[in-house]
């Protein structure tokens, strides 16, 4: 049972490395920003899997905090790409 969960964990790690590849290679700044956004969402899934595997409750708190911070960071980066202030 836990072997299958570890397989899932491995697949999600591969996803994270694909995102990191795009962050490193991406020819322009928006490409990197997209990859950072997607990496944040994948890590939320990773935290949920960790909460199941270890049976510890606090990983879900990490997942929620990560989702909130990732969203705010992405919006701030998008506004920066537009070349405007954050409060418009």
């Amino acid at each position: 049972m836990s072997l299958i969960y570890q397989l899932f964990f491995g697949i999600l790690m591969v996803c994270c490395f694909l995102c990191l590849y795009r962050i490193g290679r991406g020819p322009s700044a928006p490409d990197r920003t997209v990859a950072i956004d997607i990496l944040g969402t994948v890590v939320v899934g990773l935290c949920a899997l960790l909460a199941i595997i270890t049976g510890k409750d606090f990983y879900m708190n990490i997942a929620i905090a990560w989702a909130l911070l990732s969203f705010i960071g992405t919006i701030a980066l998008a506004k920066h790409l537009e070349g405007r202030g954050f409060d418009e």
Partner: protein
Amino acid sequence: MSEIVGMVIIAIGVVFDFFGCVGLVRFPDIYNRLQAATKCVTLGTCFILLGALITCGSAPTATKAALCAIFILLTSPTAAHALARGAHLSGVKLWEKSVVDKYEDDKKH
């Protein structure tokens, strides 16, 4: 029983996540990547959280998973929209084989 159902749902979510990330690497320009990655990774992560909700017996974890899934489902399209607009306004061109770009035409006038 609930463990097997949860595992199947998590498996679907992980597979969608994986194909979303493959799309992120494989597609040619930022807008196509954003499409593939946003759709697949949003639904994939929501499926993983749903599986966590079904598998975890304890109430606090389940409610947190449900809240997190709702939050991701609401915010991820908004982030994608902001990123696409920011990329276009910062001057990233579409792929050279693109058919039409009405936005660029309207910005010139």
